[in-house]
C-alpha cells in the first residue's frame, strides 16, 4: 500500500534510502484488523526510498521555530508514514522564503485528488474559523485509513494535500501518532503547536485523528455488541438503564446542552 501511495505522491519520488531509523516506540493502543499487513508494511521499507538527509540537523537559518524537538515525535520513528512526514518537513525547511513555501503549497493544492461534490456535506466539515474544509475518511478492507479532502481555499487545499500524502493508506496507529508539534517546521501561516481555530494544519490533522478513532471504535464495537449498559448518569437524573451507544449518542450530539 505504501509503495503505491508513494508513486502517486506529489514529491516527485526522489527518495534515497539506506537510512536507519530509531525503533518505533510510541504506538497508541489501536489494533488494526489486518495486523499482518501493517507489520509487513512497516518492517519492509526496502522499496521505499525516502531521504532522511538534513532531518536531524536543523540549520538555524532555515528554521524559524525555536522549540526543542519532541523526543516522542513520530519524526523519530521508522514507519513509512514517519519517513514521509520527515520528508515533508525537510522539504518545507529547505524553503527559507515564505513565498516559496506558499508556492509549494499551491503546487500541492493542484495535485489534490478530486473530491466528490456529494461528499461536501455538513458531516464531513472540518471546523475552522477562516476556510471551509471537507474531510472524508474511511477504513479500507486492509484496516488502513483512506482520506479525501477539499477546501475553498487554495492554500488550505495545499495543507490537505500534504496531510493526505502522509496519512492516506496509513494504519490507525500511525494516524494517531502524528502530533501537531511534528508540523511546526512546515511553517506556513499558523502551524504546529498553535492550537488555534484558524490553524488549518492542526484542525485537519485533528479531524483525521478523531474520525480514525471513531472508525476504529466502530469496527471494534460491532462484534461485541453495542448493548452493554451505559455507565453515564445524566444531570437530568436519567439512570443507566439504556445502552452505552444510545446514551453516548444522546449526550454527545452537538447542540445538546447537558
Amino acid at each position: 500500500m505504501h509503495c503505491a501511495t508513494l508513486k502517486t505522491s506529489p514529491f516527485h519520488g526522489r527518495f534515497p534510502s539506506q537510512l536507519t531509523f530509531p525503533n518505533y516506540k510510541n504506538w497508541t493502543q489501536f489494533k488494526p484488523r489486518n495486523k499482518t499487513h501493517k507489520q509487513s508494511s512497516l518492517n519492509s521499507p526496502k522499496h521505499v526510498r525516502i531521504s532522511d538527509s538534513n532531518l536531524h540537523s536543523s540549520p538555524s537559518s532555515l528554521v524559524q521555530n525555536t522549540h526543542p524537538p519532541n523526543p516522542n515525535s513520530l519524526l523519530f520513528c521508522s514507519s513509512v508514514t514517519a519517513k514521509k512526514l520527515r520528508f515533508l518537513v525537510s522539504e518545507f525547511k529547505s524553503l527559507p522564503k515564505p513565498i516559496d513555501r506558499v508556492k509549494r503549497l499551491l503546487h500541492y493544492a493542484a495535485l489534490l485528488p478530486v473530491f466528490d461534490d456529494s461528499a461536501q456535506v455538513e458531516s464531513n466539515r472540518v471546523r475552522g474559523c477562516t476556510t471551509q474544509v471537507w474531510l472524508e475518511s474511511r477504513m479500507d478492507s486492509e484496516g488502513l485509513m483512506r482520506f479525501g479532502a477539499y477546501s475553498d481555499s487554495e492554500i488550505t487545499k495545499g495543507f490537505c494535500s500534504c496531510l493526505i500524502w502522509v496519512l492516506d493508506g496509513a494504519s490507525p496507529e500511525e494516524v494517531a501518532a502524528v502530533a501537531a508539534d511534528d508540523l511546526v517546521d512546515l511553517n506556513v501561516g499558523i502551524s504546529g503547536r498553535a492550537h488555534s481555530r484558524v490553524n488549518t494544519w492542526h484542525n485537519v490533522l485533528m479531524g483525521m485523528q478523531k474520525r480514525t478513532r471513531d472508525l476504529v471504535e466502530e469496527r471494534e464495537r460491532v462484534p461485541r455488541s453495542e448493548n452493554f449498559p451505559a455507565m453515564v448518569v445524566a444531570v437530568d437524573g436519567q439512570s443507566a438503564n439504556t445502552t452505552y451507544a444510545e446514551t453516548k449518542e444522546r449526550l454527545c450530539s452537538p447542540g445538546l446542552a447537558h
Partner: protein
Amino acid sequence: MMMTTAAEGVVVKFPSFKITNTNPTLTNRRFATVRFGSRRLSSSSSISVVSSVSSSIVNEDEPKLGPVSLGHSTRPHFPILHQEVNGSKLVYLDNAATSQKPTAVLKALQNYYEAYNSNVHRGIHFLSVKATNEYELARKKVATFINASESSEIVFTRNATEAINLVAYSWGLSNLTPEDEVILTIAEHHSAIVPWQVVAQKTGAILKYVSLTDDEVPDTVKLREMLSKKTKIVVIHHVSNMLASVLPIGEIMGWAHDVGAKVLVDACQSVPHMVVDVQSLNADFLVASSHKVGLLPYILGFCHAYYELLSVMPPFLGGGEMISDVFLDHSTYAEPPSRFEAGTPAIGEAIGLGAAIDYLSGIGMQKIHDYEVELSNYLYESLLSVPNIRIYGPKPSRTVGRAALCSFNVEDIHPTDIATFLDQQHGVAIRSGHHCAQPLHRYLGVNASARASLHFYNTKEDVDDFVRALKDTVSFFSSFK
C-alpha cells in the same frame, strides 16, 4: 527538490507609485457628522466611484493624511509597529480585532505591577489602598470618557461579550416572558446574538432580525416597523465590524423607548473611534471592550447602564465582592457596580484602561474621528483600484460615512489565501474569516471575507503599502489559474 512551478517568475513587487491629483472633488472632504439617516442614496449624493483611484487622491492636498498627520505623529508612541514581519515592515491593519497599545499604557501596567500590585477593596494596607484608588479612578475616567453621570454606572467585565451576557442573563432572564420580542440585526456580532438565543430558549421570548437595505446597511425603516408593545429590548451595534456602517442610535433609541423597549448598544467599534456620549444617546445599556476599543488592555470590558436600572437587576455571577452579607442559606447583594463584579477584577487592566483614556483624551476623540474618516475614505477609494474587488457595506458620500475599515472579497481568491500571502510575503496583517458575523456573511452570499481595519496611528503610507501588496497578491494567485 521540487519542480519549479510555472508561476514562480510571475510574482512581482509593485514599484511604489506617485499619487497625483486629478479629482479635486475628492479632496478635503469632511463628514461633520456620522449619520446614516438616508438609507438609499441618490446618485447625486453618492461619490462617483473612480477605478483609477490611485491617481485621484493626493497626499499633498489632504493635509490630514500628509507627513504631519495624526498617524505620523502618534506612530512613535506604539513600539510594536516598528518591527519587521516575515522580512517586511509590519503594516498592522487588524485594529477591529484588537488595537495596539501606546507606551503610556505599557508603562502604567508596568508601574502597577512594580509599585503597587495588590487586591482592591479588601486590604487596608498601603498597596491595597493605592491599588483601590487607582482602580476606582479608572472607573471615573471611563465614566467621563463616555459622559456617564456617575462612575457607579460603569460595571467592569472581562470583555464586551461578558458585558452582553450580563445584560442577557441578569436583565433578560428577569424581564422576558413568552412571546416577548427581542429585535436584533443580522449584522450583529455573535457575542450579541448567542446570549439572547440562550435567554430566548429559557424564557420563550422571540428573536427578530432586521436585514439590510440595498446599500448594505441595516434597514432602520424595517426596524422601526418591527417595534411594537411586544418588543422588550433592541440589541444593536453602533458601528458594524464588517459593513463599516454607523447606525443612528439616537433615533433608534427614541423609537424603542416609545414602545417601552430597552436598547442595548454594542459600541465596541465606535467608542475607540469617535465621541460617544451615553447621555446624549440615552442608551439603556452600552457595552464595549477595552482591548479593541482603542489601546486598552485585554481582559476588560465595561457595561454602562443607568444606576436606577442596575439597582433593580439581580447578580449575574456569584462570589466575593458582589455580596453584602453571606449566610449559609442565603446572601444579600452589594449595590452596583460591585453587585456585578464578582471576584478579584482585572486590576492592572483597569488601571491601564485609565492610562489609555488619558492618552486618547490628550489627542481628542473628535480629532481622532476626523482623521479616521479621511483615512477610511482613502482606504475605500484606494481599494477600488484592485481588480475584481467587492467591498461590503455602504459607499461613502457626503451624507454617508463609513467607519475606518473595509471588508472585501476578490473574485476567485479565498480571503484567507489573501491574508496568508499578505502576511507571509508583505508583512501586512489583516483579518480573514467571518469576523464573528456568520449570519451577515450568509446574507451576503459568502462564507468569509477579508477585512482591513484602521486606527489613528495608521498612515496613508500604510494604506498605500497594503493596496500595493494586495495587487501583488491578486496577481500572484491569478498566475496560478
